[in-house]
């Protein structure tokens, strides 16, 4: 399955194959750093607002695709809040991966990450940060990066196929 996380409420991009979309259909509560998703309800965020299952959806996915406004080289606040609330995809214990400390896997699926980032005047520095961030995310999820691309406007996104 493809898991698509977007900040575009009215999302009409062509998608091939089986997929699920997480979009801002309601207000999202941000992660409060309680680690309840590791030590109270392992695998699932404790905040019940309709955005608590992303970690589980990630475990059922082979691709995770961000379609988001580029925010200083990061994904947008909504997409980041979804991502922050999904750390239960990984296990709290640490492992050493590529010489750095990261989290152990909870599940065995390997996720391939893509980011389609849009925005007016995305600078070269922001693009560089975004590419590096996706690589760092992939290392943390023990996954891979497939594609990071940039678009000047929402209109340009209409032609992509996910």
């Amino acid at each position, binding site marked *: 399955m493809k898991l698509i996380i977007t900040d575009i409420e009215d999302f009409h991009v062509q998608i091939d194959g089986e997929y699920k979309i997480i979009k801002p259909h309601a207000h999202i509560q*941000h*992660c*409060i*750093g309680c*680690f309840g998703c*590791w*030590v*109270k309800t*392992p*695998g*699932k965020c404790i905040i019940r607002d309709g955005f608590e299952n992303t970690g*589980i959806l990630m*475990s059922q996915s082979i691709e995770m695709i961000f379609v988001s406004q580029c*925010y*200083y*080289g*990061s*994904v*947008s*606040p*909504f*997409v*980041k*809040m*979804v*991502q*922050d609330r999904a*750390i239960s995809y990984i*296990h*709290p*214990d*640490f492992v050493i991966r590529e010489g*750095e*400390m*990261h989290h152990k896997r*909870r*599940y065995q699926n390997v996720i391939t990450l893509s980011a389609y980032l849009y925005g007016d005047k995305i*600078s070269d*520095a*922001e693009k*560089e*940060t975004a590419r*590096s*961030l996706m690589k*760092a*995310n992939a290392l*943390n999820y023990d996954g891979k990066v497939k594609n990071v691309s940039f678009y000047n406007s929402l209109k340009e996104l209409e032609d992509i196929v996910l």
Partner: protein
Amino acid sequence: MRIAFIDGSPKIKQSTSGILLEDIKSSISQQAECIDITMHKQKLSDIQLEQLKSVDVFVISCPLYVDGIPGHLLSCLGQLEETFKNQLQINVYGIVNCGFYEGQQARYALNILENWCIKTGLIWSGGIGIGGGGGISQMPNGPRVPINKAFQEMGNNIMQKQIQKNQYVSIAFPRFLYKVAAQFGWRQLMKSNGGKPKDLNKQW
């Protein structure tokens, strides 16, 4: 000089970001007027915006969340860009703490703060990435020496509004012991919540 100490953790109490802010405050000469600002929510209040408008320096402290800065803080930064774009001449220093051992893992979060400064017209003045953040609140002074040293240098730079290069430090505590202590801690927390250690491995 007026300095805003901005706690960007979502935690209202006992955040590592808040503890680190208190530490850097103690490295700053008493001639400065310190203003505490909390960014625990997704939006800043009008009062907070007014307070931030009147300072010379921002010191932003936050945790590393999924290699970047927390989503609620990104939202606040967006609000600040919209409100103050190219209107303020403020030096911004960043402190990002991560649960991983290597402070270097905070580098992209510091890059995000720098990119935000450029977009907003603020003066990025450098940051510190701190590794081993998970243990800071329970640690005595010894393992915190490398952090205090980096804070001393940043404190001097803040008082002179000097720009510094990003620095990366870790606690003075062996990585393998930090890893073992963290794993023990998760099991204790699981037990205190009524679960068993094996529940940490739950799959859906």
